[in-house]
């Protein structure tokens, strides 16, 4: 059996995803989204693999990964909580919600709780402005979130995961 140079599992995934997108450079953002969905983040090691596969320079791929807020360079917690910090939510005591979230999770924005359960992220508008303040937990949108609802949603989220 012929042995090929070993590719890390992440790099294998990256090549698969690129090929699903026809190895097209204009689909780079879609490629990164899909890869992040699969791996939870965009590891540094896949950047040269993607660059070679879709015929871009490493600098170009690095530039795209770092430009967009969505792409993570490190794994996130098991749950991702995004709280809106834009004007509409500000007008409905959104900053108080942010303080409550930070205190109760003991993590700041962009940080993950010590047990690796929750990553807290700031987001600027979730399009739920008539029902501010808004937050999103693992892609699930919630409206009219105050401290009490935040606690309810979080305990539901964490207990579902425990089951």
């Amino acid at each position, binding site marked *: 059996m012929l042995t090929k140079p070993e590719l890390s599992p992440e790099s294998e995934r990256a090549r698969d995803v690129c090929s699903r997108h026809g190895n097209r450079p204009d689909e780079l*953002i879609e490629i990164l989204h899909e890869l992040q969905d699969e791996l939870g983040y965009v590891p540094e090691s896949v950047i040269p693999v993607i660059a070679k596969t879709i015929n871009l320079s490493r600098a170009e791929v690095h530039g795209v990964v770092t430009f967009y807020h969505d792409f993570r360079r490190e794994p996130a917690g098991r749950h991702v909580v995004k709280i809106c910090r834009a004007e509409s939510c500000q007008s*409905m005591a959104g900053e108080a919600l942010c303080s409550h979230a930070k205190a109760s999770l003991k993590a700041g924005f962009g940080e993950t709780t010590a047990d690796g359960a929750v990553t807290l992220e700031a987001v600027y*508008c979730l*399009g739920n402005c*008539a*029902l501010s303040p808004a937050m999103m937990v693992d892609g699930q949108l919630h409206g009219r979130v105050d401290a009490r609802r935040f606690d309810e949603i979080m305990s539901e989220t964490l207990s579902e995961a425990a089951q």
Partner: protein
Amino acid sequence: MTRVFVPDDAAALSMGADKVASALKAEADKRNLNIEIIRNGSRGLLYLEPLVEVETSAGRVAYGPVAVKDAASLFEADFLNGGKHRLGHGLTEEIDYLKKQERLTFARCGIIDPLSVAEYKAHGGFAGLAAALKKSGADICKDVTESGLRGRGGAGFPTGIKWKTVHDARADQKYVCCNADEGDSGTFADRMLMEGDPFTLIEGMTIAGIATGATQGYVYIRSEYPHAIAKMKQAIAVLLAAGFLGDNIQGSGKSFALAVRTGAGAYICGEETSMLESLEGKRGMVRPKPPIPALEGLFGKPTVINNVLSFAAVPDILSHGAEFYRNYGMGRSRGTLPFQLAGNIRQGGLVEKAFGITLRQLLEDFGGGTFSGRPARAIQVGGPLGSYVPASQFDMAMDYETFAANGAMVGHGGIVVFDDTVDMARQARFAMEFCAIESCGKCTPCRIGAVRGVEVIDRIIAGVERDKNLIVLDDLCQTMTEGSLCAMGGLTPMPVQSAVKHFPEDFDRPPVAKAAE
């Protein structure tokens, strides 16, 4: 079988619509009643979500906001026959909030099953496309120009003129791009339409393709809208199968392909040239203009770029005629605008009205005042780059020119209400901070100016040489306005300067010990 409507619009879901739908189904099963639950879009009465409707012989009857715990009592009140209940609002169409609107773009939203071609057609869908297929591209552009439709994304450029430019350009390939990067706080109309009536947007884009000779379209949707992305992808698949997209549309010989592209959390990609870069798979860096995208856009080819609501207005213009659309509105602002009532407001939601309605009418007649019950102090109109309008100007008519004359902008029609607890100096600081976070970094006034802006406002808040720093802030704002490449840096001074101008008392508070975070 009784038809019961429970929206699957993201706003309704955010208030528990999925659980309500299952609770109603379970309750019906328990009582051996046969109901069909239809997941419609939202009617836009977001303060009543989840708004459950029941189809009766008299029409659809509304109940809301329904919680899981209300399911049993609704059945006991015989809501399947429109029975009285404390959450009941009578016939949906008779609810004041809805009745007083002039719905054109959102005429079907919340009424039909968003993915049913049959229902879409039964409510006038594809009449615009049928009309367009009988016309030349130039005639379609002429209709759109004569309708007076202006870009609903905020800038208000005449849509027909843009289309004509692409139509007249010679190229082997042209594109139609829909800007659905609805990043402005206080706006959700694009999202509601894509989730509640996606075929209208697709029909509008297809007409743009036929009008200009473009055969490929893209919808660029922000990643914060997973529900809209999923619904648009489903809608495209349904219409491909039904022969309304793809090759040889309805046997006309015309072709139009459409794909969804997902943004990645960059606000700046709502700027059209930045969006083009992003669609090409690059960093969302703003391009200098000229060349205008209508001549050199996506991949350097002539490209129509419009907002969701601009495309969605087009089918009506084609099916009812330019004159019909023109008859709504005032001055040079023709047609209707879906206003979005948000922030500290009791009855938030979507209100589609002809231009000319005042802020006060929106706030009081529709919105029912603030959510907190305190006096409204400021309304930010047109997103994070729009002005803070003080209560003394709430009687201003909503049209592009009136607002511009008063140093404000209508923008995308988003209205964010603040009560009297707001600190306008903090809001001004946030405008600069947001610009610093979201600037693409291409031009200096925006990239550096926003950072300096935060610092200067911090000094003003801290009471450090306040008068001198207000002059510096004014100078900085002028540099950003005049020197920035796009609206991000160019308009950030709008909320800042309007706050300073209308709420000077907030910039003249006694110094606090710890000002900067």
